[in-house]
């Protein structure tokens, strides 16, 4: 136990701080702007449901990274929820495989209004390497209405935060 506490003390706080003294495109600025936007437009709480619709798992790894101590996205009031019924925003990765088409639609339909959908990754945006085939429906917008997309293969955690911020700025009146 002593070792554990000592390690916690020794490592200290590594979450990157919120100061706004650095350039626009770095994490710090994005983080604090995201926190403000969520505070103002979602009363401090934005609930996200993620659905992998056929991804290679690359996007999932980076979405996961949002929860690590460096990005710690919960600081900004953003949290991932287990049910689409609790979600404000649906984050869909991958080309939509035909075998996931019905499930993706059901998850979308289960969300309460008003709802937002972000297609994540090049595959979500336009089908990426996989495109449309006997097994793939391609882009997410081919299956459900999409409000925005975050390109990248996969998008980095910073890209993801920027993409969420851009969507909120554009879609939700303050």
């Amino acid at each position: 136990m002593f070792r554990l506490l000592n390690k916690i003390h020794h490592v200290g706080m590594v979450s990157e701080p919120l100061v706004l003294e650095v350039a626009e495109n770095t994490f710090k600025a994005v983080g604090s702007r995201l926190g403000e936007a969520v505070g103002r437009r979602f009363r401090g709480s934005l609930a996200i449901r993620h659905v992998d619709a056929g991804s290679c798992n690359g996007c999932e790894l980076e979405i996961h990274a949002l929860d690590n101590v460096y990005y710690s996205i919960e600081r900004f009031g953003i949290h991932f929820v287990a049910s689409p019924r609790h979600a404000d925003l649906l984050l869909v990765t991958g080309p939509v495989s035909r075998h996931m088409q019905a499930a993706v639609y059901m998850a979308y339909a289960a969300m309460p209004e008003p709802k937002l959908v972000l297609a994540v990754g090049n595959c979500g945006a336009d089908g990426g390497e996989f495109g449309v085939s006997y097994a793939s429906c391609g882009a997410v917008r081919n299956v459900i209405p999409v409000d925005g997309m975050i390109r990248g293969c996969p998008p980095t955690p910073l890209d993801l935060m920027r993409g969420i911020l851009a969507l909120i700025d554009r879609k939700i009146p303050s």
Partner: protein
Amino acid sequence: MMEPSVWAVDFAAQFREKVVAFRRSSPSIQAPCYRFSVMPEEWGGVAAEAARAGLRWSGLWAEDQNNRIDLTVVLEKDGVYLLVQTRTADDSPSIASHGLYYPAADRSERRLADLFGIAFRDQADSRRWIRHQAWTELETPLRKTYPRSGRDETSTRADSGYPFLGAQGTGVCEIPVGPIHAGIIEPGHFRFQAVGEMILNLEARLGYVHKGIEKIAEGRDPEGLARLAGRVSGDATVAHTWAACMAMEHAAGIEISTRALALRAILAERERIINHLGDIGAICGDVGFAFGQYQFGRLRERCLRLNAELFGHRLMMDTIVPGGVYSDLPSEGGHRLLEEGIELRQELEELSVILDENPSLQDRWSTTGILTTEAARMLGVLGYVARASGVDFDVRRDAPYAPYDTLKVHVPVAMEGDVAARVRVRQEEIDVALDLIDELVSVLPAGSCRMPWSVPASDAEGLGCVEGWRGEHLTYVRFGPDNTIARFYPRDPSVLNWPALERLIIGNIVPDFPVCNKSLNGSYSGHDL
């Protein structure tokens, strides 16, 4: 290398009368590799004799050759690979199943039945596997005549009517989970039968992320195939791309530079490290030990950032290309890697003591999700799942490919087969990977890191075999005319590891499913293709 291959010659001799061709090499992997063909009626006998001779079943694929189907099974013993092939007589092929002798063959055969319309005789389980509702029983997507675009329809129905095994009795309840799970993970369906909290049986139903990778590989150029291979399973992008490039380079007869080989190994070892770090953290998280989750997650993120700095991509996607690696290591790169190694070792040493000393953590991990050595062998599982159950196999050591042929690869093994053993083996594998990186960096050969591509002959084929972080990857490539791909099959280790989950979970409690699952960590995408 004469000794270990004796069995292969003996083995082939049993089929002497029926052997169509027996030749060494082509498709070759660096390790000794033999191949021979048999008549289709001998196919079942191959499995029977192979099982008797103690060969390991490693993979199975098919290819449409003008409506006759070529089947290839890969068997291995003592680091020597044997490819046995047959060609079916007509376009509605029926052939003996290998499942009777090799349970590992079950899902690969069911997959081929779904995609090629092959009927396997005497299958223990003849239910559909990869097919849901995107095509019908009468359609065969991987036949050449089947259009790439498939059916002209706007929406595919949710799957229904799959005959899951049932369980009856007082107090037995069924828990269906997925395809969409509660967390940020890939989709798949799990069907539990439980009494109270105890799991009587688990059946996985995969195939949800099947996106036609084999079909859309056809007609690509080598670079396009490398990009696709890098997206078969995003967490194993280096391993898949390496295996695919190795196969293509063998087909094209290209020898890549020693510098490129060393850089590929550095990338592969780093992939092993980042995945083990992330998973050990997640395994801590799954039993409520948030400290471990955040500490290991922190170390993983640091490695990812160094990847971005040195290789231009956090997950190292597209760093391996046909003929070598995309870009050379920056001049200060070697130094940065060594420096990171020192820090990481120190951190891991501290953390491993904390993990070992935490009784509640050990209580949740020890004796949880046991896979016996016998079951591991029977299912043919790979990688750390096999090694934590006493099955001592690692391609890097047992069928070494460059640059591992000149390195000493220590392979950690445990006997217990529980979650704790899988965590321990993975911790030790990080240490081994760090040692290998140190060695590779300190003697990094000079020279070019990418050789010019030379167009392979039409019909040239190659096999790639590498030890990815999950285990042995096996990738087959055959070229068509004009530098295009005619056939691509990447056998992800998850194909053989998923069935182990169904076995090791029996008798455990439902709340331990996440930790058992994470300790094995099969790839859905790599399995479904």
